């Protein structure tokens, strides 16, 4: 088994889940509680990775962070090397790719918090931000764990986006799914089978955890 690829994959999935926990919470909060009439536009953008082919998403990310884009130029000016085909580039792509897998369970959990509890907290002099941390987060804990675990599991198995943005660099961007593909291309079915089984076991274990904790895992958008 390619332990280096396994390490890269788990590092990528873990960092993606952590970043999405931080970035996804405010987005989900806004999507749940904003009364802006056009917010469905943002909802649709967040949900895009669910339906877009990973190659299409990967292609646009590649162009957006490439040396010809302002973002890509800015990054290579500051850091010293371009973003595509690096672990950081891959991380950014993974975050965008797994965004709905984090934001949607978060938003669904927030929407289930009884609004009268939130109002009660406000009348007790507790600010909106503190109410979020002291009341809303504990009340939506299951949904937050679900979102984090799903984005972790989703990143573990990503292939198209990784290939487009990360390439196939040993120890840097070669993930387990790429490794399996390489093994099959090299007709090493035994090696591919071992790695595939590991991925299957981990993914199944993660989903077991989620379903055991929360039965509404795949609820797409919160009911309103």
């Amino acid at each position, binding site marked *: 088994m390619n332990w280096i690829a396994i390490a890269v994959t788990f590092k990528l999935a873990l960092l993606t889940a952590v970043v999405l926990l931080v970035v996804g919470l405010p987005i989900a909060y806004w999507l749940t509680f904003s009364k802006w009439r056009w917010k469905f536009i943002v909802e649709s953008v967040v949900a895009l990775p669910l339906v877009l082919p990973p190659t299409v998403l990967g292609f646009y990310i590649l162009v957006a962070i490439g040396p010809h884009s302002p973002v890509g130029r800015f990054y290579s000016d500051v850091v010293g090397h371009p973003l595509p085909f690096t672990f950081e580039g891959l991380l950014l792509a993974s975050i965008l790719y797994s965004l709905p897998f984090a934001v949607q369970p978060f938003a669904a959990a927030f929407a289930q918090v009884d609004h009268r*509890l939130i*109002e009660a907290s406000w*009348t*007790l*002099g*507790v600010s909106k931000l503190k109410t979020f941390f*002291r*009341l809303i987060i*504990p*009340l939506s804990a299951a949904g937050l764990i679900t979102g984090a675990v799903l984005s972790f599991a989703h990143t573990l198995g990503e292939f198209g986006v990784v290939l487009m943005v990360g390439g196939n660099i040993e120890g840097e961007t070669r993930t387990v799914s790429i490794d399996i593909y390489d093994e099959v291309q090299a007709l090493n079915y035994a090696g591919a089978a071992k790695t595939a089984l590991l991925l299957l076991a981990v993914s199944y274990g993660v989903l077991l955890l989620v379903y055991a904790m929360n039965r509404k895992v795949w609820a797409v958008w919160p009911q309103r």
Partner: protein
Amino acid sequence: MAAALTVDCRKTFPGRFTTAAQLVLPLDHPRVLILFGPSGSGKTTLLRCLAGLEWPDEGRIQFGSTTWIDVAANIRLSPQARRIGYMPQDYALFPTHTVTGNIEYGLSDLPTAARRERVHELLALLQLQGLEQAKPAQLSGGQQQRVALARAIARRPQLLLLDEPLSALDAPTRSRLSGELRALLTQLHIPAVVVTHDWAEALTLGDTIAVMNAGQVLQVGSPQEVFSRPANAEVAQIVGIETVVQGLVVANDNGLATVSVNGTTLKGLGADVSGSAVYVCIRAEDVLLEQAGSGITSARNHLSGLVTEILPQGVLVTVTVDCGFSLRAMITRGAREDLGLERGSTVVAAIKAGAVHLVPRSG
């Protein structure tokens, strides 16, 4: 000018109605204002405007020298900045927090020792000792209500807002707790606005009653004024009790209480009448009129008096009899003719003890 809560605001719900309220609640001598009316009359909306949870479309709310909202001047004070104690209808206790956690929720700016002391004080005041670590789901309705009250008053608010504080309780608990709540409100010395649709609750808790219907405040006055002298037919219909007088319980025999009203003695039901001051409440349709000297009936109360007013209302006639206090009776036109009732006639009013409702009145 004495400090007062002044409300003059309007809020429209598209497709429903417009809530418009003009009210003044004096603050220097804390009083309990009751917003009374049927459900859907706009009471809760008005209370939520006071809490800062609903924004009126126009008008202003002034609390003492602080403007809470002034739509024209674009001033909107958040609920956090109003220092209020708000208790919603279903209490909205935080399910993830213990009783202590709920009570101290709004006290996070206090040092730990002071916070602990305040919680201890409130647990004692509301008789919640022993339940410190319980979660709301483990509490009875009455206990939940007391936790919600403790949480609402923990920050020593300058105004208490209670939405149907007793409606989530079963009837026996409700009548027991209404007296306790009145005593607590008096003891706390905090002005309060209480929403209710229950007339007994309104009488028990209130110093001033504002009768609301379809978003409008129809009459504001003392309980006795509003119930005994409704401003118009609409108010009379909403309050539904034509005679409300103050009385003193002089004896209580297994729930059958003897009450003295202006020297007239009445028997009424009130097993849990606590204290001796009560409101005696009698519906006009529960009063029978008979000629003086007629036979014995099962009614426990026979009060003779003079007819002071006769008011025809369709097929019915409302007759006011002075029998030590003003008693209203509703009879048919035919009955009035058979009895030959005119102003000044002598008549006996018969009322069953069960129709004489006694509402405890303490403080």
